[in-house]
């Protein structure tokens, strides 16, 4: 097992008819930042949910760091969904405690550094947080983990340009050669510079998996432009 993520012949269909994913196979190595790109409805979110154990594949299997998706893999995956999952009236420090409790690889120091640079006080209650602050909070929680796989679902959508820069810088500074970051997005232009490899997903199938430099060298254009070409309506 050299590959961090092994997705083998995975398919997902609802009621035997609606094929959201068809025979998807993908192997992601360690130490790369990979973009999962595709239009809405291409199956990105479905694939991501399956990697996180939030959905069962209809066929095929997914292994992360050698384990099938389950309790062990969840301990090694840090997931940032495109939803706000924080709720209730807990304080920031209570949430940090919660994460420290359940995740062995959670780093208080990293969290403290990020919270201070984002100006989020430990005593702030969730109820009084704006949606933007909650999203930043979720980013802090994900990036404070020393996980094997980071899965970020649309981390920069609906975020102002300054915050986008912060998020991308955080992703880069958190980089380590033992972990892989999978970013699912349709805002390619902004994140292109930080990607090593890209996966193009169309209608539930992988149409491309290659390095970004290959795209630029072979097609003489940016990944963003090449994407527009491939997925032209």
């Amino acid at each position, binding site marked *: 097992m050299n590959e961090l993520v092994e997705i083998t012949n995975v398919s997902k269909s609802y009621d035997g008819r609606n094929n959201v994913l068809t025979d998807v196979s993908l192997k992601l190595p360690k130490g790369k930042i990979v973009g999962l790109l595709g239009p809405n409805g291409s199956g990105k979110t479905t694939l991501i949910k399956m990697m996180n154990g939030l959905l069962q594949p209809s066929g095929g299997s997914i292994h992360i760091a050698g384990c099938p998706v389950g309790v062990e893999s969840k301990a090694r995956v840090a997931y940032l969904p495109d939803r706000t999952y924080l709720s209730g009236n807990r304080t920031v420090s209570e949430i940090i405690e919660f994460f420290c409790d359940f995740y062995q690889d959670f780093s208080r120091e990293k969290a403290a550094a990020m919270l201070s640079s984002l100006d989020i006080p430990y005593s702030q209650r969730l109820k009084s947080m704006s949606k933007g602050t909650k999203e930043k909070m979720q980013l802090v929680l994900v990036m404070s983990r020393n996980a094997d796989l980071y899965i970020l679902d649309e981390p920069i959508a609906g975020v102002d340009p300054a915050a986008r*820069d912060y998020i991308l810088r955080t992703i880069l500074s958190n980089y380590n050669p033992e972990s892989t970051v999978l970013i699912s997005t349709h805002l390619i232009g902004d994140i292109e510079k930080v990607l090593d490899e890209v996966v193009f997903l169309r209608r539930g199938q992988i149409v491309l998996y290659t390095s970004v430099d290959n795209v630029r060298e072979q097609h003489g254009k940016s990944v963003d432009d090449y994407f527009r070409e491939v997925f032209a309506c």
Partner: protein
Amino acid sequence: MAWNLDCDRPIYLQLVERIQKQIVSGQYRPGSRLPSVRELAAIASVNPNTMQKAFTELERGGLIITQRTNGRIVTEDQNMIDNVRREMACKHTDEFFRRMEEIGYTRQESIERILKFSEREERGE
């Protein structure tokens, strides 16, 4: 501030060019230590793997040398640095002549234009 990079061409090549420029212009003196891959990648806001590729390329060209204890240093071979500077100058010159040709200047006219331009600069206009 992130470096200004084009997504149309491989980024690592652009990084190579930029670091070369910094070396030939003296920003990184011969024999001096370069920042680590991670540090420079953070400054440039690029993927560390991409910066690593750039470093590897520069090493291949001999402009930087990896030392086991000191990290990466700029070569002390002044000849090599001068060569690189000359290559870059040639490229810029080629580019200049090509562009002038695109707007209808001949080689001779282009050179005259340069001389006139620098005379005016000296006179302070």
